């Protein structure tokens, strides 16, 4: 599949060069090719689904187009997080993504892995792991940017998720998702000193206990 092979090349190149090493024109060209792949992909094979969601994730995070979340996430998508946190609907996911992108605008998505089981008829399940490579250079709920990086001493913040994809009313939809990321490290990155971090994490823990 030519387009598929081309997307793989693009992704490989992206992992090598990192965010910001391409010109805007190259960025736009890369994104458009991924958009075309996401638009035209038939999702007939597990391998196609893996490639599609890698491109889709990059369009959302790396190319900063969170609106495309609505393509595969619907009003009914259930997203489970740590500590029993649960959100419903694509709007919540879009808003969360925008806030993260605002705080970490240079975010580069480095894919560790994605693989898929299933078929066109019954739907697909997939597991995915990514590494966050970004710095807090934008405003967040914890205040002004700290400039701190999410990765430290060669160690990364990983995000790991499982998604169930099914055809709902003729459209492919993520019906349910489970995600656990590195909340404590993310909060630490967005807070200036230890005292502020303890306060922020206590607030986050409070949210968990009140859910």
């Amino acid at each position, binding site marked *: 599949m030519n387009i598929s092979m081309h997307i793989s090349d693009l992704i490989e190149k992206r992992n090598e060069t990192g965010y910001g090493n391409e010109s805007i024109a190259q960025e736009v060209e890369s994104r458009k090719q991924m958009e075309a792949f996401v638009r035209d992909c038939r999702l007939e094979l*597990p391998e196609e689904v893996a490639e599609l969601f890698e491109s889709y994730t990059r369009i959302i995070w790396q190319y900063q187009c969170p609106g495309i979340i609505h393509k595969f996430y619907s009003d009914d998508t259930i997203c*489970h*997080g*740590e*500590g*029993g946190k649960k959100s419903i609907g694509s709007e919540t996911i879009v808003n969360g993504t925008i806030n993260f992108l605002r705080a970490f605008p240079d975010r580069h998505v480095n894919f*560790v*892995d994605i*693989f*898929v*089981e299933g078929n066109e008829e019954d739907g697909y*399940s*997939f*597991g*995915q*792991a990514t590494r966050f490579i970004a710095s807090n250079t934008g405003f967040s709920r914890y205040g002004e940017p700290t400039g701190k990086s999410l*990765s*430290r*001493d060669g*160690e*990364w*913040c*990983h995000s*790991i*998720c*499982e998604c169930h994809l099914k055809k709902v009313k003729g459209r492919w939809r993520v019906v349910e998702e*489970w*995600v*656990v*990321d*590195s*909340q*404590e*490290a993310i909060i630490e990155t967005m807070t200036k000193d230890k005292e502020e971090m303890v306060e922020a*994490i206590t607030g*986050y*823990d409070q949210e*968990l*206990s009140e859910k």
Partner: protein
Amino acid sequence: MISDLYMDTIDELMEAVDSCKFEDKEEVRTFVCNLTKLVYDYKMMGKLYDFYIQDVEYHKQNRRRIHGVEELVHNVLDLCAEFPDLKADIENVIVYKVDDTFYKIFRRLRYKGTNLGYSKYGPPTGKSLGDNCLNLSLMHLKKVEGQWKFVFEINSDSEGWIKEVETQ
């Protein structure tokens, strides 16, 4: 006797994991479920040495890395000591066969248990993890020198929730 029931189950699970041929995805799925039960539910964490390479690349949440299989076993010991009634309820396992010597696995489970042991946050609180302790794992299982071993894993705990349960 409960001990008899436990030991019979441990024997069955050990036989199942030790004799696994890893010939297809279903067999691998069953293997992962059995090994997880042995390690967490039946406290046979030492079995991890059989199925992880010594210098496994193992990443946890929040930039933490586990350096080798010994540290991995210590990590499981910590959790089991803090939650002596710990059970790992597996909800789903995705298996992808790369080739005859390589499987990729994604496991979703929830830890269930009560904080009845000391933790880094202090004395036991008696609080339960409830249904909230999601754990996700992405693993690479490869045939290394004729033996099936986990060579790579990313494993994320609900760290914030565990802290909440272990804090008075």
